[in-house]
């Protein structure tokens, strides 16, 4: 794979940072940079073809309506869903989880029911469920994570029952980078007839997802972590579940017939997309999927695996550097601490070298509590990162360490 050619599609890397350095962007688990094609899709819409969708029988509204439908179809193929009806556009993964919590789960809950999540969840896949538990007297059960970063699958087996009304789990930890075995989880959950929601926000920039193979009931993701724009994402849901649910929001665009007495709603997915959608965002998402699909999936996965292994072995040469979790089932996300230097101080020093890393708790405070760490440094890679980026990271870390010693 020609990484220089791939990287050249991202205009941000053509400039220097305010400290005069090349930008080394290692915070891809938070959000990824945007290729020109995504930026063009958005600017083209606003500058040349701006209109609403689904409501106007004129140019350019009809053009955009077709394009939005095409993106829905792209997402369907991207996730290997059965139908476009299973694809609902949202404002992002967080929005999707909140909507499923409110429209799907809340109306079913009663005291004594259980919601199961895992210890590695991002706050987005924890707090909506915690709030439901508070409101409905439901119990929140948390799947423990082992020192290796893997979930305790035997614990899941023991604790799943028909009391568990939903199991919500991420496809991989945004801190440890360890993938969860979703197929194994859905197989177990099927026995207790527990629906499974997968937070796939972290995986789609580097791994392909097949919702039919995973057999999950819901899956959410955000475009911005896979080279697309912010403020747009997707809920995938099995058709019977999306049909059964009340609309995520109420308003225009989702109705068949409205009187002051009653309203009939459109079929899925439109029933769940009230209001004028984030059209530019959806078009940008379409371009992001095209970008990901133009890269060979095998080559992308192999390249990022090689890069991650190189980073792991390079980082381990630094005295006092401790990596959180193990190395099996690792995605391109590495969290670590260095003895005697706070992650924020490390981040400030790296920033001066043009290196962007994340320092803190990464929106996963309970996970850091589990590992008894107040904060860590996280580096996460995307297809435009290189071994040279990692060499510069290690050099900068050694300089930082020398300063603080």
């Amino acid at each position, binding site marked *: 794979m020609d990484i220089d050619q791939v990287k050249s599609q991202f205009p941000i890397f053509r400039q220097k940072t305010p*400290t005069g350095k090349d930008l080394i962007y290692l915070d891809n688990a938070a959000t990824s940079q945007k290729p020109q094609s995504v930026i063009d899709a958005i600017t083209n819409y606003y500058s040349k073809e701006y209109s609403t969708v689904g409501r106007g029988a004129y140019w350019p509204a009809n053009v955009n309506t077709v394009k939005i439908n095409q993106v829905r179809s792209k997402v369907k193929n991207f996730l290997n869903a059965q139908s476009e009806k299973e694809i609902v556009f949202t404002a992002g993964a967080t929005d999707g989880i909140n909507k499923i919590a409110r429209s799907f789960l809340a109306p079913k809950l009663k005291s004594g029911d259980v919601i199961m999540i895992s210890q590695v969840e991002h706050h987005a896949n924890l707090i909506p469920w915690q709030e439901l538990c508070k409101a409905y007297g439901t119990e929140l059960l948390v799947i423990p994570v082992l020192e290796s970063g893997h979930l305790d699958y035997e614990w899941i087996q023991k604790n799943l029952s028909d009391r568990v009304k939903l199991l919500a789990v991420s496809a991989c930890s945004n801190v440890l980078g360890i993938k969860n075995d979703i197929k194994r989880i859905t197989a177990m959950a099927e026995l207790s007839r527990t629906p499974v929601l997968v937070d796939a926000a972290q995986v789609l920039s580097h791994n392909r997802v097949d919702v039919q193979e995973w057999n999950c009931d819901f899956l959410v993701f955000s475009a911005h972590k896979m080279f697309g724009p912010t403020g747009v994402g997707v809920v995938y849901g099995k058709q019977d579940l999306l049909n059964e649910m009340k609309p995520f929001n109420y308003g225009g665009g989702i109705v068949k017939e409205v009187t002051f007495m009653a309203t009939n709603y459109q079929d899925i997915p439109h029933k769940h997309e009230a209001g004028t959608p984030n059209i530019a965002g959806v078009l940008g998402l379409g371009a992001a999927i095209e970008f990901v699909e133009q890269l060979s999936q095998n080559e992308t996965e192999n390249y990022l695996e090689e890069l991650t292994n190189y980073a792991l072995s390079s980082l381990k040469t630094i005295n006092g550097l401790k990596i959180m979790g193990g190395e099996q089932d690792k995605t391109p996300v590495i969290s670590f601490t260095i003895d005697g230097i*706070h*992650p*924020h*101080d490390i981040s*400030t*020093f790296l920033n*001066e070298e043009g290196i962007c890393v994340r*320092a*803190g*708790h990464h929106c996963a*405070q309970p996970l*850091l509590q589990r590992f008894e760490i*107040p*904060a860590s440094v996280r580096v996460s890679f995307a297809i435009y990162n290189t071994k040279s980026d990692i060499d510069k990271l290690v050099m900068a870390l050694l*300089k930082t360490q020398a*300063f*603080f010693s």
Partner: protein
Amino acid sequence: MNERLKSLYQTVILQKSREDKYVGKLNDFSLEFRAYNPMCGDQFDLQILIEDNSFKCLKYSGSGCSISRASAAVLCEHLQGVELDTVRQKVELFLELVDADSDKQPEELTDDENLLAFAAAREFPERKTCADLSWKELLNQLDTLNQS
């Protein structure tokens, strides 16, 4: 190491962040509060003994970066023995010192080198919350004290 970093990580800040003179818990205290930055997880518990209308003794415990630790240490040092009437003025001066929007130069505000070291936070807006974490929470506590 570049000049910008040198200005932020001055010797005084590194020394104060490692000094344990004010680290710990008081057996007897009049005021106890937590300064917490939810964005990064830095967290300090501060305890203050008020006697004879002044801050008699101050201690802090917890974890954070070198800037936030040094800042908590300097808060304890700077306010020890200070009369209640003048505490607010000193806290507000520190907050102005680290505020890039202030129209005063740091040197116009103080000649105390331990305090001036934190003025570099004006150049690092992302680190201002580290520099003023404990001080801002103390100001909140003073407001609560006044109301009660």
